[in-house]
Every structure is written in structure tokens, then in C-alpha cells.
């Protein structure tokens, strides 16, 4: 099987990586502090015979639930106490670490998991502009935000790479459209990658988005660029493009068990060595959706 074979050269312990794809994705939940407390949710679910395991050391809002649980059918979901969200997706918001009362732009916001997490980290203060180009995705985005009690967000529908430059933000979340390889598991059916022509177009769009996200930052502002794919073309190469075109700084990521550094070389192409400061998440190292993240700062 040649599944992800091209990545054997940089994914550590590649056979374990392939084995990890045999397992279904775990059931991760985020407790929504905007409406409740972790202790309350743990107690409510325990009364129903549902036991949560902490999923992330040092954070009391992220948990793993039993695999057979359907979180969307729980009363606690309806009440907005919990949100099913991949652990690695939550890590992106933790890396962004937005301050209370700051201004945040979420460039590609739907379905709203990261937006609502950012709102939670800001304790519903300041303002978040949740941008989503596709209007058909505004309904699920709006549903997520309202169910979780988010009160500091406005929705816009600009193409991310053309978001108006007349504004600037303290924080930008650029979780951009990608080929989605990190979401793939065997249980989800046959693997297929997007046509190479489409993927090339996607990389070009990603480059424009990272530039626009950076240009929208205030001085000393912070951006997280993330994708849920392993493909270096959509990850390190895009960050390398930013570093080559702007006076950007890559900020070291907080240590997370299982995180791997960015790769400085791919298909005989050398990237700016600073891309090693980005982070890669593989499912055999952290049992969740595969992700890439880079934390970028605009110099003061």
C-alpha cells in the first residue's frame, strides 16, 4: 500500500503512523467555560454513567469520552456545556492564546469550534470577527456560537485572502482550507486526495491567505497558521513563503507531548530553517486529527 508513502521520509516511526490510522478517531470534548465549569460537567455525566478522561495535561477543559458516546445527543450538548472538538484543533486556539479585551480575526471560521474556543479563552470579552466566505456555512457557524453562548462575535463573509486591510487585529487565526489528510482514518472509507491541479490552486490560495492574515496583524500581533494536513506544500512551504515576503517572526510553540518540529526540506527544496519552529501533530503521537501549526508574530 502506498498510502501516504511520500511522507515516509519525514513522518517518524512511519509504520506506527499507518497503524494509528486503523483506529477510529477518539471522542474528544471541550467543556465550555462560558456556560459551566469542568467539575459540573464531569459530575452531570458521571450521574449518567459517562466517565471522562483528561485529554491534555495542564488543561481542565479538554477530555476524552467513551468511543461509543454520541455527544450531540446529550442534554449537556443542547445546553452548550460541551463541544465535540478534535484535541489538536483545540491546541491551535491554546497556541494563539488571545488576551481578554483584544481584537481577533478568525479568517476561515466555520464551523466555529476554534472561534468559540477563542471566545472562551477571552471570557466573552473584546471582539472576534468570525469570517467565513461561504454563506451556506454561516448557519452551522451561527448555531455553534449561539449554543455555546458566545456574545463577542460578529460574522463577515469576505474571501479570506481579500479581507479588507483597513482593519488590524491583535490576533489572527488562519486555519485555512486544506486537503484534510489529517482527518483521514481507515474507518472513514477509501483514501482519496484532491486532484493535483486543485491542490496546486489550494496552495496558491493558502499563500495569499497567510500573507493577508499577517498584513492584518497589529505590531506585535500574533497569528496561528494551521491546517489539518501532512502535506509540506500546504504547510512549511506556505510558512516559508511568508518568511520570504514579510518581516515575520516564528514564535516557538509551547511544548505539547507528541509534537514534532516542522520539516526544513521536502522534495529537494530547502525551506527557511526557521520552519523547524512550527509544529506537526501525528495520530500515533497524539491520538487526534493530524495537524500542522505555526505561530507567527509581527515585529514591533
Amino acid at each position, binding site marked *: 500500500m502506498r498510502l501516504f508513502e511520500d511522507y515516509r521520509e519525514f513522518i517518524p516511526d512511519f509504520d506506527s503512523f499507518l497503524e494509528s490510522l486503523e483506529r477510529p478517531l477518539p471522542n474528544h470534548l471541550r467543556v465550555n467555560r462560558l456556560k459551566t465549569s469542568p467539575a459540573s460537567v464531569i459530575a452531570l455525566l458521571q450521574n449518567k454513567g459517562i466517565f471522562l478522561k483528561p485529554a491534555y495535561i495542564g488543561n481542565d477543559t479538554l477530555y476524552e469520552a467513551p468511543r461509543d458516546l454520541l455527544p450531540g*445527543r446529550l442534554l449537556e450538548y443542547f445546553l452548550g456545556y460541551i463541544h465535540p472538538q478534535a484535541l489538536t484543533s483545540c491546541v491551535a486556539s491554546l497556541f494563539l492564546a488571545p488576551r481578554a479585551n483584544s481584537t481577533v480575526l478568525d479568517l476561515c471560521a466555520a464551523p466555529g469550534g476554534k472561534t468559540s474556543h477563542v471566545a472562551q479563552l477571552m471570557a466573552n470579552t473584546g*471582539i472576534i470577527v468570525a469570517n467565513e466566505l461561504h454563506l451556506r456555512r*454561516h448557519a452551522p457557524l451561527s448555531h455553534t456560537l449561539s449554543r455555546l*453562548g458566545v*456574545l463577542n462575535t460578529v*460574522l463577515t463573509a469576505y474571501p479570506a485572502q481579500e479581507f479588507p486591510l483597513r482593519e488590524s487585529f491583535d490576533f489572527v487565526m488562519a486555519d485555512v482550507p486544506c486537503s484534510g489528510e489529517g482527518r483521514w482514518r481507515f474507518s472513514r472509507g477509501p483514501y482519496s486526495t484532491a486532484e493535483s491541479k486543485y491542490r496546486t490552486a489550494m496552495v496558491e490560495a493558502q499563500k495569499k491567505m497567510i500573507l493577508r492574515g499577517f498584513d492584518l496583524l497589529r505590531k506585535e500581533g500574533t497569528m496561528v497558521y494551521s491546517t489539518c494536513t501532512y502535506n509540506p506544500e500546504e504547510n512549511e512551504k506556505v510558512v516559508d513563503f511568508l518568511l520570504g515576503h514579510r518581516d515575520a517572526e516564528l514564535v516557538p510553540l509551547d511544548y505539547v507531548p507528541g509534537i514534532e518540529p516542522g520539516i526544513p526540506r521536502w522534495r529537494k527544496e530547502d525551506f527557511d530553517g526557521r520552519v523547524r519552529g512550527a509544529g506537526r501533530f501525528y495520530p500515533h503521537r497524539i491520538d487526534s486529527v493530524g495537524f500542522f501549526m505555526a505561530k507567527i508574530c509581527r515585529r514591533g
Partner: protein
Amino acid sequence: MLFSYLEERFGIHEQTFVDFDLFSKRKSWWLLRKTANAYLPVRLKVSQVGLRAFDKVGKYLKPTTRMIQLFGHHATRGVHQVDESGLQRLSRGESLEIDGLIDEGFVILRLREQVLGLGLLAQGKITSRIRKYELNQISLS
């Protein structure tokens, strides 16, 4: 007027909303936390602001489920406590008969400490005003 309705009907003090702005669009009102950066939404083409808080339904004003879930715990009156079997009946579209201690109109439905949303009390019976689809999704076992 909108917040005074909540005070009159449910005893939720208007002061609770001192840190919020209300925006109206068509037949709905939206609640947004006040911010020092209020200029931001003004200069952008915005499709939605904050949380949908009230809808005008016919000639009546109805707080949304999410609004009540967020602020209903401040209520001192107009609250009806349901149990699991009552909630299941409501989700099936049935009504609950109650003793007449609450004036007719919207009531806040609460299951133990959890605020679920709104019901409508008329002629001694409460019916749910929570979206049926969402209620039907809930598994109480």
C-alpha cells in the same frame, strides 16, 4: 423595552445587561458584549452581530432559547421546574398541566439547575417553545 420585559416577566434585572448592546435586524434583536473596539463591526460588512436574543412572533416578543439558557438563571419568577418525564412529554409535542401560580405567557423551563429554554403557558397548560428538532435529539437515559 426588551430588557424591561425580562424584568417584568421573569425578574431578571435590566442591570444584568448593562455591558451589552442590542442591534435590531428585521424581526430580531441581537445581543453583543460592549467593547472598546466597537468601531470594528462598523467598518466591515457584517452579516450577523452577537447572539440572537429576541424575535418578534406575531405581536409578541419572544426571547430566544439561547438567550434564556444564558440569562434564565437570574430569573426569580415565571420559572417552571420540569422533570425528565415532563421533558420527554414536551419533546413529543404534548403539554403539561400546571397549577395556576404563574401568569399566562412565556415561562422558563428548568430541569433541576439547568435552564432549558422557554415554554408557553396558556389555559393552565405549558407547551414547549424550544425547537422540536433539538428537543428530539436529546437522549435523557
